[in-house]
């Protein structure tokens, strides 16, 4: 039986790990390579590095970071943020990343998903969706949650997978940073709509939230940041609690 993956997310800004509370009030939480290596030893199943400023500052993607991470960390990892072209995807994979996460670029140029899937395989194409509740349901937002694309989040997820996405990284902008639990309705709506794994993101505060994301939200993996970076809990203790609740973990 495949294990449910527990994935620390390292939001990167200026080469350092930060975790925004609802994406404002950024706070420094350490060196990405050290932290990644620490999480790897602690039992993280994968790692995600997102350059959260890349999209609106037009900067180059986190290729250099991927190089540094790959020298020290021997578990799969994903990089995202500012990756807009097939060449950039190739560079990231050559740098040692196992997957790339596409967000704004995939919305602006959906063909990027299919080109990447065709060239490098669906398994390395993650489409990240930042969803927020609006009067018309869950919409996809870009630019750190500041711009409403008016696209329906569930429909976009299904379309991304149709184009070749191998995985959906789904963040609830409403839940993100609250530590009140994942958005289970959103997670379930997307997970039930696509045949590929969905990584639940945003709102993790304690172990029971992770269990809920899997059991009720139908997530295949859970992403966390703040509660780990702050030392509120550890991956091992979260996994022990998940296992005790019957969720298979490594």
């Amino acid at each position, binding site marked *: 039986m*495949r*294990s449910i*993956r527990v994935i620390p997310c390292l939001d990167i800004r200026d080469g350092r790990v930060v975790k925004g509370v609802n994406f404002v009030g950024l706070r420094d939480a350490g060196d990405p390579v050290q932290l990644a290596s620490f999480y790897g*030893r602690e039992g993280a199943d994968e790692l995600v590095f997102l350059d959260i400023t890349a999209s609106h500052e037009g900067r180059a993607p986190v290729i250099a970071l991927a190089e540094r991470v*790959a020298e020290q960390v021997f578990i799969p990892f994903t990089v995202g943020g500012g990756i807009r072209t097939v060449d950039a995807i190739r560079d990231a*994979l050559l*740098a*040692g990343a196992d997957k790339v996460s596409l967000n704004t670029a995939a919305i602006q140029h959906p063909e990027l998903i299919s080109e990447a899937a065709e060239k490098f395989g669906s398994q390395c194409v993650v489409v990240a969706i930042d969803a927020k509740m609006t009067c018309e349901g869950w919409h996809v937002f870009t630019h750190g949650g500041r711009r409403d694309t008016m696209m329906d989040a569930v429909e976009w997820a299904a379309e991304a997978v149709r184009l070749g996405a191998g995985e959906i990284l789904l963040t609830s902008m409403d839940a993100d940073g609250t530590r009140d639990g994942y958005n289970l309705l959103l997670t379930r709506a997307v997970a039930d709509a696509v045949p590929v794994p969905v990584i639940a993101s945003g709102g993790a505060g304690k172990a029971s939230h992770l269990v809920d994301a899997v059991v009720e939200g139908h997530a295949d993996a859970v992403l966390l940041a703040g509660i780990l970076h702050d030392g509120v809990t550890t991956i091992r203790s979260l996994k022990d609690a998940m296992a005790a609740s019957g969720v298979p973990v*490594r």
Partner: protein
Amino acid sequence: MGNLRSVERAVAHLGFTAVVQDHLGGATRLIIPGVGAFGAAMAQLEPRVSEIRAFARDGHPLLGICLGQQLLFGASDEGARETPGLGLLAGRVRYFPADLGVKVPHVGWNSLQFRADSRFGAGFPQGGQVYFVHSLYTECEDQADVAATCEHGIEFAAAVERGNVWGAQFHPEKSGDLGLALLRNFLEFNP
């Protein structure tokens, strides 16, 4: 794709030197990594096939990783045209059947059961988990070649081992400390 560099870095991390080259000159042991398609990979290896076969026949340690394990076999169901593999091990590479009720590709961590006398799996804790990304698996003609099994809808050869010829269907270079320990077993293996 990035697999080649990842293997190189993992080997370096273990204190050994890996050299990426398109020939076997000076090599004492060989790792064939690989992400991609069987036919395309064999086309690339084509000029070196007899050299690789001789290398293996001479008893040098050889490890195929992921697609690299599949290339050790004679043939594959992948691709429209039948392309012969290296043929160092007897068997065929097959797709996971569609009716298993499991997701294909098989991506993620899964547990291994190594054969007790496997040199590749020496020291590996039974049920320990490693990282997989694949859609095809190798069907061994000789069950004695199966070093470790894994279950994904069906039981398949997660690792193979025949004398000096080893294969890993998973990615030891991406499987954390357990994966690195298996890679070390290969690097320190003397037939």
